[in-house]
């Protein structure tokens, strides 16, 4: 897939909003004023970036610990190469999996090629969910692990230079 074109004005919109949307009644007007654009232009460009996927969505990112999801496990699986895509799609479709990717192994230290994030109020809850993934993977899975996060060290999101 070729990347959609973003121009200098789109880029300035990214720089202006990557830290967050202004908490004022007319946030897009506020951004427009800051950048010397019209509010219509700002809204049109943001809609175009949503359309092209440059913006995944406009919304809030919760601190999962703070809203009660205190156990966050990155489950990782060593799945047979010829089955990983089909099985990955099925794991990704489970309602409790929030992210699911195929990634390269880093042998010998890291044999896992399928990553799926699960969340719970306890590690037991995460382990139960990991058990469901394990059952679904069946004999195609040779090894697995759950890496629980114990601290958010940084969570700022994208930061490109002005």
């Amino acid at each position, binding site marked *: 897939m070729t*990347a*959609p074109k973003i121009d200098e004005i789109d880029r300035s919109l*990214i720089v202006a909003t*990557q*830290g*967050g*949307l202004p*908490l*004022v*009644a007319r946030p*897009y007007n506020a951004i427009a004023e800051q950048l010397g654009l019209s509010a219509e232009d700002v809204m049109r460009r*943001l*809609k175009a970036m*949503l359309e092209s*996927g*440059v*913006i*995944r*969505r*406009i*919304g*809030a*990112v*919760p*601190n*999962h*610990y*703070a*809203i*009660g999801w*205190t156990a966050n496990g990155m489950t990782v699986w060593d799945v047979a190469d010829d089955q990983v*895509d089909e099985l*990955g*799609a099925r*794991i990704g479709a489970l309602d409790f999996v*929030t*992210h*699911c*990717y*195929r*990634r*390269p192994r*880093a042998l010998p*230290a890291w044999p896992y090629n399928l990553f799926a994030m699960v*969340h719970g*109020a306890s590690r037991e809850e995460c382990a139960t969910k990991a058990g469901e993934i394990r059952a679904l993977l069946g004999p195609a899975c040779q090894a697995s692990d759950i*890496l*629980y*996060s*114990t*601290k*958010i*060290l*940084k*969570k*700022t*999101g*994208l*930061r*490109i230079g002005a």
Partner: protein
Amino acid sequence: MRELSAPQGDLMLDAVDRKIIAKMQGEFPISERPYAEVATQLGIPETELLQRLEHLLANKVLTRFGPMFQVERMGGAFVLAALAAPEERYEELTALVNALPQVAHNYRREHALNMWFVLATETQEGIAEAIAHLERDTGLPVYAFPKEREFFVEMKLEARL
């Protein structure tokens, strides 16, 4: 050891906060008065929504609110990477890694690879540059796990408190 990042300030979320957290993880409108639109849907005044959002962000219940960019879609790259940080150097290495603006987030995890972070760069080459920079600064190998295929991404969690 469970050294969780507790949010600052009082953690009491009421029913309205929970509704806001659920609602604001959805699609925020692009319109002249988007907060007024969302507030109407929630049955609260626009000013109350703005005040509560400010409070939720200040208390780090929400870590950010705004557009979520997919840097790959603008020619850039987004790569998961990890380090095996010796315990006695953990704080120093956290500071070194976090100092890079290309590091979008970073988590401590329980494993020999105990520091997991995401690099987001405007160009493809930016990833290799950031990794080379980190390997030089830390003296440690950086493992890169670029996504080869994305099966699902939708991070929406309801408040359970």
